[in-house]
């Protein structure tokens, strides 16, 4: 099995599962309970929070555990809008966000907020000039994806953060779900106020995520109830999921030290070899893109057909993002980048983990070389 769909989800590391199992079985109590069993669970939670904070170079108090990336983005965006609506109702985001961000903004538009969607160039990147032009006195939030989940483009987060320092009323949120462990981001240096992360994209478990909330930044909670997570996020803490996530983060960041170079090497090999196959057009930009994503289009061949054909060979890749893979139409990311319908509707994505090896790429290339001519003749 060659799994090249790591941007959709990753396989949990064995040591992460061991941790999960141990905590789920032995430390099941509710961390809010005041008895000894509860204190044990609370201690584990505190420890996990401190490990996560250390790994991300932030304070424990700045870590809010969530149910995942979608909740993180919803909480950051709506929580900021509701908290600061008296200051202004203008929000800025980009045309190439993940669905959880885009749909949150759409919802806010419905209830009277004004949203500016920054356009992107052919590489899928916004321009600082556009951002400068759009920030206003009543802008209360700028939200941007760090690494695009479909094509891997990296946005100029540090420059944006630096510029937004001039607008203390504008909260800066970054969706770091795809970047975590593959494209380092220093939250403090980039002046990020809010940052979304998800466990299952870094070999942790589905159902756990992190929202970094810079000290001093206030959010209107989405879930109200108990006083967990500094009252920003009510609900019994998923202790086994959280401790497993801390473990996953530690392991993945350790692997990333030498792994990023390896990913880049895999990507370069794949780019070079795929370029040479007749009918393949690469969409991921060469400059300022993440090392683990390579998006390409095969015009005239239905992506679903190609995916299922590769699946027969034991190779797993995807079309656009998994969350919208069943929606009709082409990739809205590629459309925003100015690619026509032909290229947007025939896009495919391969995404690597630190576990992938050169052989995997070779198998993919061989398979494509073999099946593409056959599929083309069928399609006529």
């Amino acid at each position: 099995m060659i799994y090249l769909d790591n941007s959709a989800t990753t396989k949990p590391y064995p040591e992460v599962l061991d941790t999960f199992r141990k905590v789920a079985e032995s430390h099941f109590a509710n961390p809010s309970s005041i008895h000894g069993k509860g204190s044990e669970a609370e201690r584990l939670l505190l420890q996990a929070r401190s490990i996560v904070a250390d790994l991300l170079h932030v304070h424990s108090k700045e870590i809010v555990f969530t149910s995942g990336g979608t909740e993180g983005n919803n909480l950051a965006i709506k929580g900021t809008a509701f908290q600061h609506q008296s200051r202004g109702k203008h929000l800025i985001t980009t045309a190439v966000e993940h669905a959880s961000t885009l749909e949150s903004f759409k919802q806010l538009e419905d209830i009277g907020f004004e949203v500016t969607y920054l356009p992107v160039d052919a590489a899928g990147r916004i321009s600082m000039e556009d951002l400068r032009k759009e920030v206003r006195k009543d802008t209360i939030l700028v939200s941007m994806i760090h690494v695009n989940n479909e094509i891997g483009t990296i946005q100029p987060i540090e420059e944006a953060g630096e510029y937004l320092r001039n607008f203390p009323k504008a909260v800066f949120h970054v969706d770091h779900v795809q970047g975590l462990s593959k494209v380092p981001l220093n939250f403090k240096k980039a002046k990020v106020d809010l940052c979304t992360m998800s466990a299952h994209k870094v070999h942790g478990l589905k159902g756990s995520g992190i929202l970094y909330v810079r000290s001093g930044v206030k959010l209107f909670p989405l879930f109200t109830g108990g006083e967990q997570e500094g009252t920003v996020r009510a609900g019994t803490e998923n202790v086994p999921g959280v401790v497993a996530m801390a473990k996953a983060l530690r392991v993945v960041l350790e692997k990333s030290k030498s792994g990023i170079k390896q990913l880049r090497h895999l990507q370069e090999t794949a780019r070079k070899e795929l370029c040479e196959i007749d009918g393949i057009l690469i969409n991921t930009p060469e400059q300022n893109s993440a090392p683990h994503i390579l998006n390409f289009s095969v015009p005239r061949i239905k992506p679903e057909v190609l995916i299922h054909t590769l699946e027969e060979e034991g190779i797993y890749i995807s079309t656009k993002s998994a969350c919208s893979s069943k929606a009709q139409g082409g990739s809205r990311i590629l459309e925003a980048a100015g690619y026509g319908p032909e290229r947007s509707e025939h896009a495919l994505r391969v995404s690597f983990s630190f576990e992938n090896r050169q052989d995997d790429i070779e198998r993919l290339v061989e398979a494509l070389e073999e099946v593409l001519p056959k599929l083309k003749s069928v399609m006529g």
Partner: protein
Amino acid sequence: MFKEGEIVEAIYLDHAATSPVHPDVVEVMIPSLKENFGNPSSIHRFGRSNRHVLDEARSTIASSVGAHPKEIVFTSGGTEADNMAIIGTAMANKDKGKHIITSQVEHHAVLHACEHLETLGYEVTYLPVNKEGRVSVEELKAALREDTVLVTVMYGNNEVGTVQPIKEIGELLQERNITFHTDAVQAYGLLDIDVTELSVDLMSVSAHKINGPKGIGFLYVKEKTNLAPFLYGGEQERKRRAGTENVAGIVGFEKAVQIMQAEKQKKTELYLSFQKEMLAVFGREGIDYKVNGDPEHYLPHILNVSFPGVSVESLLTNLDLAGIAVSSGSACTAGSLEPSHVLTAMHGETDRAFSAVRFSFGLGNTTEQVTKAAEETVKVVKRLKAL
């Protein structure tokens, strides 16, 4: 002298706060995490096989409450389900009206969601309860208005175990076209719940209260219920709840539900015998105690008892030292020194509200443990009263 690392075997009687994960639940979760880790929205086999697994689990879980699989929306737990039900109904019906009715004894996930809506211009009626902790259907009827869009009343109370007249409320509301939500987090797992008989539109359930994993729950959404989504993004859960599905959590939840269904009857009888046993020990030892709750309509696994003249903080600390894990009110507010809002609603700010302990039974508890816990409680109560 204890050897290092040796501890008194703890007796856990706080299952209403959270319950241990059943070993069989972990057993199904691990292979799911190892082999079926794909994203259910992916169109390749890894995704598709998980889609199938999700469908199966959804169907098992739906049938446990008599619902159609389409009517089950998986959430991250009870808190999210309550928030989604209340805020989602309010938002979807804001043109129809802005009045909501709930009770004074709800879980904080419900109460705080209602308070949040008050800040947005909604009006909320908090129904009082009688000394047994029950709302009156008559009072509810009197509180209904033209602009009432939602009634949310919990099924079984998490602190005192009182079961509310859900069926009667449902019947009252059915003809009036008002959405009815019930928080069944504590009741699900022990009571027989059939949504077709109850006339409820929305119902919250959490897995970790029935020996399933934390981080997963569901909201039952009756077909055609007008509900605004809560988390926006992908098209999961029929566009009602975005976010990559927590497949292993859902599979674990399914297993917990299957075990629950097989053991419900047996457990109910066992927990009722535990209640009797505790009270028998208290009676035999002649300590002063008062049971809080409704003697007719109650959950089998919750026994809430006041020990007049004893401070609950000292009682809990001493019981904890004796290796018995119980709680005062709900775990979510366990850290606060405020008296329980539930007991205050039932008895006012009296000694009874300040001296109450909740014993809640569950997986692994034995009659021996319960007897021992009751005896230890008696010892502590006697000691504290002698001071």
